[in-house]
C-alpha cells in the first residue's frame, strides 16, 4: 500500500449507530489484518468515544452528528472522534477513572480510562459550548501480506 488510506464517517447521534460505528471502523482497519484482540481494543475505544458524544455531548438528542476520521499509515491507525455538542468544562476531572457526571444513567466513569489503556496514544480536547475531539492512535503489530 503506497500513501495513506483515509476515511471520514459522520452519523446521527443515535444509540443504534454505536454498533454501526464499531463495524465500520473494524471493516476499514481489517486491511491491516489485525489480531482479534487488537480489533477488539479498537472497537472498544471507538464505542466509548461515540457513546460519550451521544450521551454527554448531545445529551441523548438524536439530531446531532458524530464524526469519525480514520487514517491508516504503515502499521498505524489514527482515529479522531468528534462532536459539536456541549463540550467539557473540567477536562482534568472528566479524565479521572470512575468520574462520571451521569451516575443517574448508570455510567461507570471508565470511558476515558479505557480509551487511554486500549490505544497507544490518546488525547482529548474540548471547548464548552463547541464540542469535543478525541484523538487516538494504535499500532497494529500483526501486519501480514495481503491475500490479493
Amino acid at each position, binding site marked *: 500500500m503506497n500513501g495513506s488510506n483515509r476515511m471520514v464517517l459522520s452519523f446521527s447521534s443515535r444509540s443504534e449507530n454505536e454498533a454501526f460505528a464499531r463495524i465500520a471502523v473494524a471493516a476499514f482497519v481489517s486491511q491491516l489484518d489485525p489480531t482479534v484482540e487488537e480489533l477488539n481494543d479498537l472497537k472498544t475505544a471507538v*464505542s466509548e468515544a461515540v*457513546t460519550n458524544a451521544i450521551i454527554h455531548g448531545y445529551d441523548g438528542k438524536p439530531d446531532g452528528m458524530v464524526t469519525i476520521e480514520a487514517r491508516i499509515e504503515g502499521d498505524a491507525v489514527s482515529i479522531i472522534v468528534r462532536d459539536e455538542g456541549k463540550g467539557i468544562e473540567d477536562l482534568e476531572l472528566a479524565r479521572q*477513572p470512575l468520574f462520571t457526571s451521569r451516575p443517574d444513567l*448508570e455510567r461507570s466513569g471508565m470511558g476515558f480510562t479505557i480509551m487511554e489503556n486500549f490505544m497507544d496514544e490518546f488525547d482529548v480536547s474540548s471547548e464548552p459550548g463547541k464540542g469535543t475531539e478525541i484523538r487516538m492512535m494504535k499500532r497494529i503489530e500483526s501486519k501480514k501480506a495481503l491475500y490479493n
Partner: protein
Amino acid sequence: MRLHEEMEQYRNVLIVRLKGELDHHTADGLKQRLEDALLRGRATHVLLNLSGLAFMDSSGLGVILGRYKTVTARGGKLLVCGVGPAVRRLFELSGLLKILALYENEHEALGSLEVVS
C-alpha cells in the same frame, strides 16, 4: 448483532445468559428486563453468564455494577461466569474484579452458593 438474554430460575438464583453485544444501546433494555425479573421473581441471587458476549464496553460495567448494588442491597449475591479475556480486562481496569465473585462456569458458580446458603 443485538443483545438477547435467556433467563432461568434455579432454586433461589436467577440465571441470566447474555448473547450478543452489550453496549450503551443495548444496556438500557437489559437493565429494565433484569430489574423486572428481580421484582417479579423470588430470586435472592443472580448469576450472569457472559460466555455468549461478542462485545462489551464500559456501558456493560455500568449495568453490572448497578445490578450488583440491587442484589446485594437485598441480601443476595451477584455471581459472574464465562468471562473472556476482553471483559476480564474491563473488570480489572474498573476495580470490579475485586468486588465480583467470578467463576469458570455456571456449575462452579451454583456450587459456591450451596456451600454458603
